[in-house]
């Protein structure tokens, strides 16, 4: 002990020597001894200023490398009063880091802050106000208001610009306080400040506040007048590069009301395209792209503006690689929206040998989008070059791109195919496999044109080890079995290893063997029997088994029909692939330059929304032409999808989930009411009667047959996820039949356990000409039904009831006609309408909307209701733990979303049981440090799997839900469902 003590005495001296020896700071990183905290404490309380400063530096260094130095809090705070600015800054840095963990001690610092806010030196005033906003301690926040108010009106612009940002900080901590104290108005006043940097920071603060606004006042902060926009655009000239970005990003939210105004704005923003900062350029591009939507696309002005955009975008490609990457991701969007802009600039997207891989892959994508008959020769020569490079991913993509060229430009298809054949000759394994996959696509686009190459393909059978390539090859063999002499031998050789193949390959093999049999029935009977028995008797996969049975029955009952089904002509695949969905594209165009445009995902998919995110009023949708005012407004709403979207667009009716009468009628007019009803009735009858089971199975089989081997997507082999879904629907049919029975027998009203939501009024009497409809969705076992309470408020009898659904997201349809006796005046009747999910599917927005038409002797009435998500959870949600784990891993992590469910009294087991009754299956349970984790799985009627991790912290009973699925759009629904169930 005495040695270490004496060492401790020497140490300060040593330190001093080293300080003099090399006046550097790196030594602070090297302290790792025991007892160091104690020593630091002594040094912090030293009499000497320089020693204290050294000690604070050491503390900051320890903090940086992640050591916990929070115990030194009081000692460090003591150093705060120093008049040395450098030391003060370091102490403040420490405070920002640890104040939250020591709120009671942080209070000690308040006085110094308040005093510093009055310091004669503006740098110190600003420093104080900048730091105080970062100390997120409630007690301190209260003291902050007065100094902040003074600083917002400070004579020095440096203090004002710092105070502007501080308002945003404070809003993040306590939004209500900011409003009460009138800081929002003070911030608005700063927009008119004489100093450009103050204006820019005020703009940034306002944008942030209105984004996370929870009240209308805050949300309205961004609703600016044309006059203000004008002023801000003038301020652009004087701002720093960053200020220009803030202003441009904020201005992008403004919707001009007249053509002239939009044109004027474009003229004033376009000089920014020549700025050296790529962020300024991209933000200017965003504003212009948005405004262009409003103008006549054929006007000279628009055409000349489009011309102006191309050069700056190309220039971005000569900047640093990271900026190039951001630019390329954005160009990918811009090219999809307005292909004209860059169609002349193909060559700049040629890949350079030294480009980083992420730049190469993006360039390749854009290259394909810009390919046309005019430039195909150049592109093809390039792609051929790329296909010989080293990076495997890049080479694969290049090969795939050649295939896409063939599909896109018919005149070049032949050249593409011969290029692919050349590549196959290289015998490089992954090149060959990729080439075979794309050649299969080419066959699907140009059937019966390039079969001559099949011979070459068959030579490479042995090298194929990837499922997609194997499946493609097998598909080709089956499709052209009549022209391949040894097709039976080839398929037989594949069949030998049937059990080891992946499902996609097995399915394809089964189908191809059946195709072969139908084409050459004489000598392949044995083969087909072998395949069918493998599929039906030895496979565990229900998907495969079902398909096997279907083929078997089909072949044994009616070979002619089988031929019609299996060898039916397939739809051609479309030319443009990989395009973003138009709505998403429009939304992303509004986010050019931002992270959303890099991920190609809407911000909602990766940003945790704050409580009242929907209140945000900024119009984020692309505007439409200004010609018709109302039309524009409606389009803005459609593009935005935000609830309160578009205060910028005047005169728009309040948005609700129920669409206008006209559009609904338009949709439903296509369906003959009575005809539709009888069809539904026929179907229901079929599925309800047991003795017709085989027929029905066949019917369902037809569907899955048609959907299975030849879906309309590009790939004839469904990826395993999709095939599971298809299989799910196949399996559903059986369950439906039995379920239908069960429902018929035991499905009385209000029977069984489970949770019955209260009835909602769907059609009020005044709209229904006296007919009032209330309803709710129920699930009894596997049977989903709609319970309706019809009340006759009219003076006459109502009869002749029928019900019809519009296309909806989950294909819900009535399983039988509405059984209703005539309804006397003032009579009310409750009836149960069983539903199935075999109706036509169309994605609705909101997702769960169901539009319903009810007919009676008076009129046809339309209403819309929301299907509760839990009604769509099926019995098939249970799965093996390992399957769960691998599925979880398969889903990309960016699909994961977290929800806070609040807290509930039930423990994990109760919650699990409660959820189980709604077909939420708990696959596994784990306890980590007294926190319970439930791993759960839900399967929707259309086969979508949702995996969930429910975290329950026992002390607080706080429930946190993480969802993972391939279809993120259903998350809100699932979240709601969880809430509903847990609340009981």
């Amino acid at each position, binding site marked *: 002990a005495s040695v270490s003590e004496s060492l401790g005495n020497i140490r300060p001296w040593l330190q001093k020597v080293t300080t003099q020896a090399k006046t550097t*700071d*790196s030594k*602070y*990183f090297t302290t790792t001894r025991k007892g160091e905290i104690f020593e630091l404490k002594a040094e912090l309380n030293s009499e000497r200023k320089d020693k204290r400063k050294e000690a604070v530096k050491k503390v900051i260094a320890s903090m940086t*490398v992640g050591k916990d130095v929070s115990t030194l809090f009081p000692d460090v705070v003591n150093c705060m009063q120093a008049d040395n*600015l*450098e030391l003060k800054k370091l102490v403040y840095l420490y405070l920002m880091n640890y104040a939250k963990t020591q709120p009671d001690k942080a209070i000690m610092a308040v006085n110094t802050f308040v005093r510093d806010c009055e310091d004669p030196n*503006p*740098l110190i005033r600003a420093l104080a106000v900048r730091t105080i906003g*970062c100390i997120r301690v409630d007690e301190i926040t209260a003291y902050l208001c007065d100094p902040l108010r003074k600083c917002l009106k400070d004579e020095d612009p440096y203090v004002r610009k710092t105070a502007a*940002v501080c308002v*945003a900080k404070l809003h993040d901590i306590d939004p209500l306080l900011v409003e009460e104290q009138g800081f929002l108005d003070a911030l608005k006043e700063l927009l008119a400040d004489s*100093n*450009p*940097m103050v204006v820019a920071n005020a703009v*940034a603060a306002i944008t*942030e506040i209105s984004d996370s606004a929870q009240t209308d006042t805050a949300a309205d902060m961004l609703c600016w007048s044309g006059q203000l926009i004008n002023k801000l655009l003038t301020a652009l000239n*004087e701002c*720093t*590069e*960053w200020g220009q970005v*803030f202003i441009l*990003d904020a201005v992008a939210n403004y919707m001009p009301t007249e053509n002239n105004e939009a044109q004027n704005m474009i003229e004033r923003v*376009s*000089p920014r395209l*020549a*700025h*050296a900062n*790529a*962020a300024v*350029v*991209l933000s200017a591009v965003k504003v212009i792209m948005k405004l262009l939507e409003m103008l006549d696309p054929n006007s000279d002005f628009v055409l000349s503006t489009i011309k102006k955009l191309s050069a700056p975008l*190309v*220039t971005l490609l*000569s900047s*640093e690689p*990271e*900026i190039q*990457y*951001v630019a390329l991701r954005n160009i990918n969007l811009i090219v999809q929206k307005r292909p004209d802009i860059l169609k002349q600039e193909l*060559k*700049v997207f040629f890949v350079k*040998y030294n480009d980083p891989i*992420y730049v190469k*892959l993006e360039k390749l994508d854009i290259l394909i989008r810009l390919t046309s008959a005019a430039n195909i020769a*150049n592109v093809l020569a*390039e792609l051929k070059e790329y296909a*010989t*490079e080293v990076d495997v*991913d890049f080479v694969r993509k290049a090969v795939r791109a050649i295939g896409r060229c063939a599909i896109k430009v018919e005149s070049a298809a032949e050249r593409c195919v011969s290029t692919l054949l050349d590549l196959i000759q290289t015998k490089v*394994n992954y090149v060959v496999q990729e080439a075979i996959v794309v050649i299969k696509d080419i066959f699907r686009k140009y059937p019966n044109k390039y079969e001559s190459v099949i011979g070459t393909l068959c030579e490479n059978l042995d090298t194929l080890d990837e499922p997609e390539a194997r499946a493609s090859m097998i598909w080709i063999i089956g499709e052209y079995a009549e022209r391949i002499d040894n097709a039976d031998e080839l398929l037989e050789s594949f069949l030998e290893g049937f059990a080891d193949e992946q499902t996609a390959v097995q399915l394809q093999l089964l189908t191809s063997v059946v195709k072969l049999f139908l084409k050459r029935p004489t000598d392949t009977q044995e083969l087909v029997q072998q395949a069918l028995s493998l599929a039906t008797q030895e496979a565990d996969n229900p998907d495969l088994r079902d398909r096997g049975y279907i083929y078997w029955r089909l072949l044994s009952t009616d070979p002619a029909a089988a031929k019609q089904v299996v060898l039916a002509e397939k739809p051609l695949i479309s030319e443009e692939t990989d395009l973003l969905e138009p709505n998403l594209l429009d939304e992303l165009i509004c986010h050019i*330059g*931002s*992270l*959303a445009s*890099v*991920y190609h995902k809407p911000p909602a998919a*990766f*940003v945790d929304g704050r409580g009242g995110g929907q209140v945000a009023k900024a119009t984020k949708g692309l505007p439409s032409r200004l010609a018709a005012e109302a039309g524009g407004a409606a389009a803005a709403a459609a593009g935005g999808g935000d609830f309160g979207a578009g205060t910028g667009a005047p005169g728009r009716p309040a948005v609700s989930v129920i669409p206008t009468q006209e559009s609904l009628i338009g949709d439903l007019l296509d369906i003959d009411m009575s005809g539709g009803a009888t069809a539904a009735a026929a179907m229901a009858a079929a599925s309800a009667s047991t003795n017709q089971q085989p027929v029905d199975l066949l019917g369902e089989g037809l569907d899955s047959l048609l959907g299975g081997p030849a879906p309309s997507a590009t790939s004839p082999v469904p990826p395993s996820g999709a095939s599971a879904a298809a299989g799910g629907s196949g399996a559903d049919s059986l369950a439906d039949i039995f379920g239908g029975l069960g429902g018929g027998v035991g499905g009385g009203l209000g029977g069984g356990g489970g949770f019955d939501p209260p009835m909602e009024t769907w059609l009020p009497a005044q709209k229904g000409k006296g007919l009032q409809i209330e309803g709710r969705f129920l699930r009894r076992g596997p049977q989903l039904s709609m319970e309706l309470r019809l009340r006759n408020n009219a003076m006459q009898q109502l009869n002749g009831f029928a019900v019809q659904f519009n296309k909806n997201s989950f294909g819900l349809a009535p399983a039988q006609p509405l059984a209703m006796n005539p309804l006397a005046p003032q009579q009310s009747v409750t009836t149960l309408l069983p539903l199935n999910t075999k109706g036509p599917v169309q994605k609705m927005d909101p997702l769960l909307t169901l539009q319903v038409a009810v007919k009676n002797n008076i009129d046809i009435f339309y209403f819309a209701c929301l299907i509760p998500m839990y009604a769509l959870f099926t019995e098939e949600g249970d799965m093996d733990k390992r399957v769960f784990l691998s599925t979880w891993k398969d889903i990309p992590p*960016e699909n994961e979303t977290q929800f806070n469910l609040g807290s509930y009294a039930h423990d994990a087991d109760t919650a699990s049981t409660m959820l189980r009754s709604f077909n939420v299956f708990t696959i596994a349970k784990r306890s980590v440090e007294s926190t319970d984790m439930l791993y759960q799985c839900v399967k929707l009627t259309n086969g979508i799997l949702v995996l969930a991790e429910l975290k329950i912290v026992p002390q607080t009973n706080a429930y946190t839900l993480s969802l993972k699925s391939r279809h993120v759009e259903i998350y809100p629904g699932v979240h709601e469902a969880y809430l509903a169930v847990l609340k009981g």
Partner: protein
Amino acid sequence: MIGGLFVYNHKGEVLISRVYRDDIGRNAVDAFRVNVIHARQQVRSPVNMIARTSFFHVKRSNIWLCAVSKKNLNAALVFQFLYKMLEVMGSYFGKINEENIKNNFVLIYELLDELLDYGYPQNTDTGVLKTFITQQGVKSQTKEETTKITNQVTGQIAWRREGIKYRRNELFLDVVESVNLLMSPQGQVLSAHVSGRVLMKSYLSGMPECKFGINDKVIVESRRAADSSSAAGATKSGHIAIDDCQFHQCVKLSKFDTEHAISFIPPDGEFELMRYRNTKDISLPFRVIPLVREIGRTKMEVKVVVKSNFKPSLLAQKVEVRIPTPLNTSGVQVICMKGKARYKASDNAIVWKIKRMGGMKEWQLSAEIDLLNATDKAKKWTRPPISMNFEVPFAASGFKVRYLKVFESKLNYSDHDVIKWVRYIGKSGLYETRC
């Protein structure tokens, strides 16, 4: 906006960590290290999402610079800021490496405090920052001084302070072009462009207003239209068509847009005035003609001809031709007419260096390459392109400075008193010929 900034060394140890926003937890520092720096497979994007947090990174030598956010922020702005931060740090303490960062960590924290507020970039101009943040600690200032500083930091002309005085008013202009070429083996130009930069060093007193004139077609013609009478006789030749140009923030962009005039008040010292890009009528200084013959499995013959294609009176310098060789090369015999050629096994290339080369010359190199018998057929040599480096004393795009006029109304020196120097340098960018 930016939620936090981290700096790591190549091992993934944190050198600097500054968190600006509450939504960035302490585990974010580790998340980046584990998922990016230590990732088993090299990360293939500069933007990565880990647990709903986005990480933007830039790597310079062994240093990782990483910005973090949970919001949908402006991605271009983040990268531009990271570059700017590297620039600022570089101008304060030179090379960006672990030692320098550790030695200056207090300074870096101080800078970060000023560069970003709540994750919003503020003033990032080195010249201005140096007026109040120094390596020797903060100067104590009088009231007038601090007001001057704050006005400048936030001011309209944030890039120049008032009261600059030089005994000799002088300015230097460097037109630096990098010539990029991709040529097919048959000599067809697949793509070629020049990216040029105009670098200026200004040592001028007061607040001078400068006007800069170049031989761009659009600018010249609009000028001529403005005063058509005087310039009617001028010939049309000698003008180039610039595809696109970008300017330092001191240039009044709105004036350029309306009047095609480049006018500005320059920062003091060195800065990049403009950047431009040109794809038309480029005079390519060199042409490389490759001839590769594979003789059997174990031998290759390479012949490369380099032609210089500019005025005989001019002299190119630092000419270097890199001829890639297969990975299984066992030996190389090179013969060249001029310069020195050597096989560099570590680079898998023959490097041919020529110190000086006049215009309109044609020199040749031939080499025999012995190969080890390639056992693994899958590892085929992909024939990377032959690349070239050089420096020539002219602008390949034909870019010319027509004038640079200096006006300073308050001080009594005129345009004639300013000493001006203009220099043209043409460098190779990616100058490649496929073989």
